[in-house]
């Protein structure tokens, strides 16, 4: 079947029609997973809220399992597959490699997601996201995850194949665009993630079927986290690529330095996955050398990379705004930014929340000694709700506002809610992440159904602040769930009932590459970015203070102060 291309009249982007349908397919599958995971989130929150305690223990652990798997695996990876297809076929203006295989892989992912969800809701696979052995789920829980992973792995190779096609057919000159390079980084981390998952989930499946007698629990934890944590590192690479994309779409911003941004991504490729080890910092069988090399020395290179992106994205926006004349003082460029445009406001809240809440707490947790303060407490979900929900999910949601008219060719319904949504959802998640981390610092457990341990022989008296913070987690968690639910309704209504927009030109051949005319004469020097520098210094100060406070806290606990 011959490839056809659609030229979007609103964005000028050129879509291979197969790739376009696949992007829509993955975006919809992702949003449906988000819907299931979001409903489950309400169950989790309303149970951990001490004054409500909605669900009995067995149902709570089933709901928590579904919430973790649907959010941390299915929602984000479905959406990331759409990002990979967009960043290869659309941004490189070429046909998608092996579209039939891409469709088969996509359906395999859907089959796997349904199978795992069925296993969970049958009630005998309440092993939570981590599924630590010797807890055993039903065989189809593991098989579903394996099928999903195989489908995602094939799409990663299709992404690489599309890069080869684009280079062979000369649809771009020089290096691939920065956003595509970010997607390549996500793809590489995804391949490591999925390979790690295969290494551990295949024997676990055989164990659940009775073909293997036992699996060593520590060995399982080490290899499982190669999948469990790296899957969240795919997010980091993908949402940073989306930050750059939204800065380019909304402001026409160009990266401050392609070299610096690409080097930062290169550091992700080399070192980001090593952060998996911070889940094992309290495990006795692993030596300090392994822990410190992985989570400190090398992970800090990845942290450096995140700080570079955290500076170059707002820096690129500041340059673009100053070139438009917003030059007064340090922050006119930021004050005059389009705060009513949900793609921008979601992206900026994602960037700030990811850096200040997720980034700083992640580095603190990555230090072996400090990790003891909060290991296996609700601080950990506080941290990863800041990275995965505020960092990744909010960025993906912001991008979706751009995709509705461009990819789905529909006018967005309820635009007033779109303006409000990033603040309602984003800021309530800021508070949720903060109070979870606060409760975790006081020692509230990460997963236990009942923080009070009612009826236990050795009850523990929590300070009132712990109950207050868990109550606030409940209140703001419900606000986040309701606003997220309304976002899903808005997107579904827009896609199904929104006003149809012009399709655009359909072509049988891609538009040939047109290179910009060579510039002659004086080179325009990009403006300085003092506002971004001040923001970076504020971040650095917060980082140092928080790090110091935690060492101080640790020394007082150990009685060394």
């Amino acid at each position, binding site marked *: 079947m011959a490839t056809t291309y659609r030229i979007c009249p609103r964005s000028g982007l050129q879509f291979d029609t197969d790739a376009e349908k696949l992007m829509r397919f993955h975006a919809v599958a992702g949003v449906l997973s988000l819907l299931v995971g979001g409903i489950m989130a309400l169950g989790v929150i309303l149970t951990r809220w001490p004054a409500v305690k909605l669900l009995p223990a067995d149902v709570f652990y089933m709901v928590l399992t579904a919430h973790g798997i649907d959010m941390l695996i299915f929602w984000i990876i479905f959406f990331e597959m759409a990002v990979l297809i967009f960043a290869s076929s659309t941004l490189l203006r070429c046909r998608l490699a092996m579209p039939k295989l891409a469709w088969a892989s996509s359906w395999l992912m859907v089959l796997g997601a349904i199978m795992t969800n069925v296993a969970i809701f049958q009630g005998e696979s309440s092993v939570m996201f981590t599924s630590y052995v010797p807890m055993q789920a039903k065989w189809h829980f593991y098989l579903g995850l394996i099928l999903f992973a195989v489908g995602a792995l094939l799409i990663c190779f299709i992404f690489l194949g599309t890069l080869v096609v684009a280079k062979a057919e000369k649809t771009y000159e020089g290096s691939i665009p920065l956003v595509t390079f970010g997607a390549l980084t996500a793809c590489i981390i995804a391949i490591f993630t999925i*390979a790690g998952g295969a290494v551990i989930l295949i024997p676990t499946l055989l164990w659940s079927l009775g073909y293997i007698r036992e699996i060593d629990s520590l060995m399982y934890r080490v290899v499982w986290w190669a999948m469990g944590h790296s899957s969240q590192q795919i997010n980091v690479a993908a949402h940073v690529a989306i930050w750059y994309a939204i800065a380019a779409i909304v402001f026409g911003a160009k990266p401050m330095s392609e070299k610096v941004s690409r080097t930062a991504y290169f550091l992700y490729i080399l070192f980001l996955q090593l952060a998996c080890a911070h889940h094992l910092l309290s495990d006795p069988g*692993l030596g300090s050398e392994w822990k410190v090399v992985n989570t400190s020395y090398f992970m800090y290179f990845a942290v450096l990379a995140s700080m570079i992106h955290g500076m170059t994205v707002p820096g690129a926006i500041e340059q673009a705004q100053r070139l438009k004349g917003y030059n007064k003082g340090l922050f006119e460029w930021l004050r005059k930014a389009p705060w009513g445009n949900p793609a921008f406001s979601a992206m900026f809240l994602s960037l700030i929340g990811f850096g200040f809440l997720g980034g700083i707490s992640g580095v603190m947790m990555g230090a072996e000694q400090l990790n003891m303060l909060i290991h296996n407490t609700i601080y950990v979900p506080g941290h990863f709700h800041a990275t995965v929900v505020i960092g990744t999910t909010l960025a993906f949601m912001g991008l979706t506002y751009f995709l509705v008219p461009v990819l789905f060719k529909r006018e967005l319904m309820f635009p007033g809610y779109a303006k409000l949504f990033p603040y309602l959802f984003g800021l309530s998640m800021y508070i949720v992440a903060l109070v979870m981390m606060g409760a975790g610092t006081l020692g509230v457990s990460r997963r236990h159904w009942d923080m009070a341990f009612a009826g236990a022989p050795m009850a523990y008296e929590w300070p009132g602040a712990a109950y207050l913070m868990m109550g606030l987690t409940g209140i703001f968690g419900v606000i986040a769930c309701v606003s997220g639910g309304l976002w899903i309704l808005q997107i579904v209504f827009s896609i199904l009932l929104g006003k149809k927009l012009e399709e655009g030109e359909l072509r049988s051949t891609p538009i040939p590459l047109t290179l910009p005319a060579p510039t002659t004469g004086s080179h325009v020097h990009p403006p300085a970015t003092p506002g971004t520098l001040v923001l970076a210094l504020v971040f650095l100060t917060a980082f140092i203070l928080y790090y110091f406070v935690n060492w101080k806290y640790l020394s007082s606990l150990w009685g060394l102060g």
Partner: protein
Amino acid sequence: MADQEENIPVMQRWLDNPFLLLFLGITIPTVLYILWGVMEIANIPVAH
């Protein structure tokens, strides 16, 4: 064309090669995290 390719800095040539990046991105965490970690666990004495 050959001259142009020769003028491309080495680092950029590395970053333009997705399969080299794939090799590095798989090998480094596999060696430092998985293999090293599994070897440490395998060397824990078995209790009798």
